[in-house]
């Protein structure tokens, strides 16, 4: 169903807007969790969707979902941006990134989600990204390896280590 929407989005702004509204919160959450600066995140997310729009005409389903394709653009844009910053821009480590849990679960579940999210944020950058994409967003190992341009074995290894570290933080 999404494939049809993507095809329409190549010509139809309204269809593209629909894709945008679906993916904007996910992409923004992914980026801000890594860069921890709202101003930088806004730039990266803007650039991500502009690139996606420019490349959309050439997008062909090669076995990866549109979401995986979009996350790959976001990841590459983020890497380029941070490289450009040359790490001179300090991340705001004190920035508390609170998730919006209004849409899911009971109060207790929301509380658990908040605690769990706090611990996910404490993982290393690459571990955090892979946990978000693999386990929270549910992309396959194959898709995540495509996003990061890494081998599937490498992604599995990082994912395993990330889970282990996350469990230790939660115990």
């Amino acid at each position, binding site marked *: 169903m999404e494939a049809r929407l993507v095809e329409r989005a190549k010509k139809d702004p309204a269809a593209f*807007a629909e894709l945008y509204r679906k993916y904007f919160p996910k992409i923004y959450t992914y980026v801000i969790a890594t860069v921890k600066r709202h101003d930088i995140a806004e730039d990266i997310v803007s650039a991500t969707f*502009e690139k996606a729009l420019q490349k959309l005409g050439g997008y062909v389903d090669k076995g990866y979902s549109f979401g995986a394709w979009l996350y790959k653009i976001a990841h590459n844009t983020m890497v380029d941006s941070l490289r450009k910053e040359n790490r001179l821009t300090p991340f705001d480590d004190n920035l508390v*990134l609170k*998730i919006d849990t209004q849409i899911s679960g009971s109060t207790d579940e929301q509380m658990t989600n908040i605690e769990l*999210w706090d611990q996910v944020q404490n993982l290393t950058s690459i571990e955090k990204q892979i946990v978000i994409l693999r*386990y*929270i967003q549910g992309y396959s190992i194959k898709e995540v390896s495509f996003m990061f341009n890494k081998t599937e074995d490498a992604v599995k290894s990082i994912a395993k280590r990330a889970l282990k570290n996350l469990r230790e933080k939660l115990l």
Partner: protein
Amino acid sequence: MSRAEKFNNNTKLNNLDERHLLQRLAGLRDSKILPVNKSFAGNLEKSLINLHRQQYEGKSRRLPAANREKQVKAGFWDRVWGVYKFQSAGLLGLVVLVVCATTTAAAYITVPEVRENLQSAVQPQSYTTLAVQSNPSGAEVYLNNELVGTTPFIGERKLGSYELQLNILGYQSVSKSIELGEQRQDFAFEMISLLDLATSTRILTSSDYLISLPDNWQVAKTSSENSKANVQTITYQTKTAVLTGRVNGNATSATGEGEQNLTISLIGADGFSQELANYQLDLTGNDTVESEQLSALYSQVLGSSGQIGGGDIIKFQWGEVYLAEVKILGEKITNDDFSIVLETMRSFNNMRIMPASLPAALD
């Protein structure tokens, strides 16, 4: 029950197995972090739609007008159907459908006007690059009193007016009003060392600054070993200073008599200390030692409080010079009781380092 306790009680995360953890992670799928700038998502969407339309119009310019209208129309109905599916079924979805359809229909009917509006809605550049360097580097950078990083600093900030301040220990703080426009702004500051200032300038003072010590100002005791520094916190107005008298006894101090080494020091922030006096005393049990010392204590900025022994809090203001004349009476030294009574203190708080050309009243 605290949040942490509820968390522990209501979940099994304390005994996590992998499957449970994966389930919990999947439960975060709909959680999100939203931009602080609430209009950001909407503005970006408008910009993208505008960009999309420009691309689309560029490609379709060669098409007959009728075909172009048909494509736009198809897009409208597809969108309506898509919006309906996007919402969950039920009355709410229906209401949203009607609202969206109405909104979209209005946009459809007035495409040329909307395009114009969208073009004007594309936000002008709202952020610019701010770069701040200092020598030495490592200065804390504040924008409108908010710590944003340390030098060398490069960041993106919204256009507008800011109060830029740089602080680094041992150097005079710098403040500057800046205006961030669309062009990148670069600032470089040569920080001036307080110690350099102190040696090259003189201190201007006035008798107006003389104060009297409150009667109950200070009574300090050493430990029974007579070897540990006694730390006393004294407060004047909003400022807190630490005055320390150190007594280093030897074996004879067990009786409280004989030779004693008495050192009086002022302790400042960030490890600064100044020895005021050092006495070799030969005491008989009830001797009184009088000491009158003049001391200039250079304070350092402390964003937060420091701590010295005994839980005493020290806090000084940036760039200020504290000048104190201290008269100290040592009384009744015994094996387990040594007291220092501060009789008077003249404190020149809020003294600024002034240029050497100005008259100085204090020698």
